[in-house]
């Protein structure tokens, strides 16, 4: 199977071409404002480098920060009508109450809080108020609102009301793009609702972006399926991404960690991704990034997406070095201007890269320009950078036991030798393109997080039905049904009550359907 992985970052677009598990070619090029032309250029280059015809590629996987940037910059977002199915409950905290004041007016298309919603045990809070929904639709239609987010209390216990409400909205507003909370988020009404609103708001951009990728790829002669990588490092089909663009929003660090796992064959290790400005350290557990317990903030909006537990600090190839009695490296960086600013390239700024070049760790620019860096100073600075990585590494590690560390990213040339607290410090081939490789090898997942009442059922049956729902979602997202296995299951009985309710979160993972 020939796959192309592309990772679009803020500065660079990386691409990798793989045949099965063999990396045929990698390339790093500049990210373009329209994203698509940079991606096309990178794909054209890897294909040419490997001498592979576009027509023989089986799949293209793209990881992009495009949608995240749209939210962060508040651009290309659509106004959203929010329908909350809640009855009397939840009215103390209306939709978007915890959004930044800058973003709310851009997205807020008016909210309707109407009869509906269920309790933790599935009993109705109030019957679905169809007339109120129709009235809200008429108002949205009159104001030209085309994106609707529907969120019901305990939608993950019983999604039927959201589905019914969606039918009513579709009948009233045939062209509306409708996002349903039970397909987007986890338990926790406000963060799930906010994620659903973000998704609705990104709908048009999602359709345009995926459309532009499709057009660009067909121009390149690629006639294979297109996938996007999502927050947990797994894939979704382009069709799915059009409807759920919000799932791509935090996929950045995940791809390089998954790539690191693939390149080394390690499933449990620390991953140290050193870029131009920052170093990101995360932990691989059973081949996937360890996630943070709190949900992700997306452009200042609290959501409950699980994102990798990554510690970032200001050390990278472009970090500015200041000599003196107590010399420092970073946290500020020349960033993408490294090729003009660094001393070795004829610039005027002493950077971490210059130190690495002077010490002979990497061959870049002209080493002759670095005569004022003494070998002793270079050694001292390299030791200092290494120590700052070791300190963070120690805090991230699950225990004092040495573990292997995988160094990836262009800046990993700064580190030489074994890091303290590690059993091995590996710099695999293609370390600079781990992110694109991570995208290329991504699998497909399905996730459900629900509160289940055990009245009238057994724990086993409840677990089974949650897992079955997760499987159905994985298959819908493009997994081959026979390869889907259970990756995570978390069961949390509800505290402070002797009742029989339990929160079950399940995630399954499978291989991409051929």
């Amino acid at each position, binding site marked *: 199977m020939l796959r192309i992985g592309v990772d679009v970052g803020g500065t660079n677009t990386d691409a990798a071409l793989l045949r099965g598990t063999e990396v045929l070619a990698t390339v790093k090029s500049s990210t373009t404002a329209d994203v698509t032309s940079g991606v096309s250029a990178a794909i054209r280059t890897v294909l040419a480098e490997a001498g592979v015809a576009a027509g023989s590629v089986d799949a293209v996987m793209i990881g992009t920060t495009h949608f995240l940037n749209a939210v962060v910059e508040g651009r290309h977002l659509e106004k959203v009508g929010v329908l909350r199915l809640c009855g*009397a409950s*939840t009215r*103390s905290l209306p939709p978007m109450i915890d959004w930044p004041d800058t973003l709310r007016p851009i997205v807020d298309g008016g909210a309707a809080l109407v009869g509906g919603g269920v309790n933790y045990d599935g009993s109705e809070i109030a019957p679905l108020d169809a007339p109120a929904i129709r009235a809200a639709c008429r108002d949205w239609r009159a104001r030209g609102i085309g994106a609707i987010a529907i969120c019901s209390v305990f939608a993950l216990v019983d999604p039927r009301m959201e589905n019914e409400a969606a039918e009513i909205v579709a009948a009233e507003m045939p062209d509306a793009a409708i996002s349903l909370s039970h397909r987007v988020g986890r338990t*926790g*009404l*406000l963060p799930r609702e906010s994620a659903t609103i973000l998704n609705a708001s990104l709908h048009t951009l999602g359709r345009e972006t995926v459309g532009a990728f499709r057009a660009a790829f067909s121009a390149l002669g690629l006639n294979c399926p297109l996938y996007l990588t999502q927050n947990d490092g797994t894939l979704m089909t382009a069709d799915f991404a059009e409807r759920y663009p919000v799932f791509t929003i935090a996929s950045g660090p995940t791809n390089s960690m998954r790539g690191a796992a693939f390149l080394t064959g390690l499933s449990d290790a620390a991953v140290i991704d050193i870029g131009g400005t920052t170093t990101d350290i995360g932990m691989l557990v059973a081949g996937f990034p360890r996630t943070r317990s709190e949900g992700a903030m997306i452009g200042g909006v609290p959501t409950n997406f699980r994102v990798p537990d990554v510690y970032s600090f200001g050390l990278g190839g472009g970090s500015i070095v200041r000599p003196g009695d107590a010399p420092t490296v970073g946290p500020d960086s020349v960033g993408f201007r490294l090729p003009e600013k660094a001393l070795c390239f004829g610039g005027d700024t002493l950077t971490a890269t210059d130190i690495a070049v002077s010490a002979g760790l990497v061959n870049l620019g002209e080493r002759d320009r670095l005569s004022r860096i003494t070998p002793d100073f270079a050694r001292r600075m390299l030791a200092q950078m290494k120590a700052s990585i070791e300190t963070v590494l120690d805090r991230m590690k699950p225990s004092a036991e040495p573990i292997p560390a995988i160094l990836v990213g262009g800046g990993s040339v700064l580190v030489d030798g074994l890091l303290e607290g590690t059993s091995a410090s590996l710099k695999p081939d293609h370390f600079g393109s781990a992110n694109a490789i991570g995208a290329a090898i991504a699998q497909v997942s399905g996730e459900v997080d629900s509160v289940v009442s055990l009245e009238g059922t057994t724990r086993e049956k409840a677990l089974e039905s949650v897992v079955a729902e997760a499987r159905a979602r994985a298959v819908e997202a493009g997994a081959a049904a026979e390869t889907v296995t259970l990756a995570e299951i978390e069961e949390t009985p509800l505290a402070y009550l002797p009742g029989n309710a339990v929160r079950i979160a399940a995630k399954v993972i499978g291989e991409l359907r051929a």
Partner: protein
Amino acid sequence: MKYWTLTEADIDRIAVGCGILGTGGGGSTYHGSLRAKALLREGKRIRMVRPADMAPDAQIIGIGGIGAPTVGIEKIAEGAEGVRLMHALEHHLGRKVDALLGDEVGGGNGIAPMLTAAMADLPVVDADGMGRAFPEVQMTTFFIHGQPVQPAALADADGNVLIVTEATTPKMLEKLLRASTIAMGCTALMTTAPMSGDFVRRFGVPHTTSQAWSLGNAVLNARAAKEDPVEAILKQSGGIRLMRGKVTDIARRVSAGFNRGTLTVAGLDEDAGRSIAIEIQNEYLIAREGETIITMVPDLICIVDSETGRAIGTEELRYGLRIDVLSMPAPVLLRSEIALESVGPRAFGYDFDFVPVGISTDAPAVPQYEEDA
């Protein structure tokens, strides 16, 4: 009368402090502080009053949430539950309520009375019945000192209100309220019997909202100045750091509505090589190092994020979390012999007597109290 009128910035500080005083439980302050700030923006006011300034015969009710926090994050409050509770009780008693307070300053319940107070324009007494969080209704200094068991009331988001007119013991009241809360969808607001100004002055843990504000203020100022927020907490609270470390194990089990478990923390930095085990029953109850118990309930065991000083609740605990384990002396009223019967180690099923750590002092009121204009 001297009042302390809260601003949005005060709410942020109080929320951080209530989190710390929650000793791992009490639920999140997030929804409460969002709602409180929204009410202030609507032009409502939240006025605090010191217990010593209350008229001796003033009628005060305690208000707080009861139920499962996991349900509360989904079926959020309607908003006027507290007003319905209060009106039902007033109707039952034939007498107006003069002020509100929280039975439990720790966690979200430290903010709960402020929301009703803002809507009803009543003051909130700067005192509570725990000085921290405890899992059960009867574990307050008020019940310990003879607060009547009835009437008590419960209200939910859907409009149901229940008044308990007779209960044989505070423990029985807890059982009745707990069972009714389940019928209400596992989340409700409750109040216990009205108390006089004089009773609250004598048996309330004084100035705990002030204490929460001061702790939160210390944390937020330290963060803004890029200083160590944990040091700021210690300096403000008079507590001690038991250890700075990393969560290495969390063994949980849930029985009879209690989230029980044992947390193991391995030392970092200057505490490298040490290990502390903390026993949990919804809150952090007992800290042991080897065979030695180093802090025990009712003294406070607070766990905060080492970098931000943010309180870490028992439900958030997970492997690898970097935390500081702090110990603070329980308020004076919780260390008395009669209080220890309800909230000492034996009340939680341990077979040893309470040994205090540090000296109890009651928190001072913040200096912001001034004459009402």
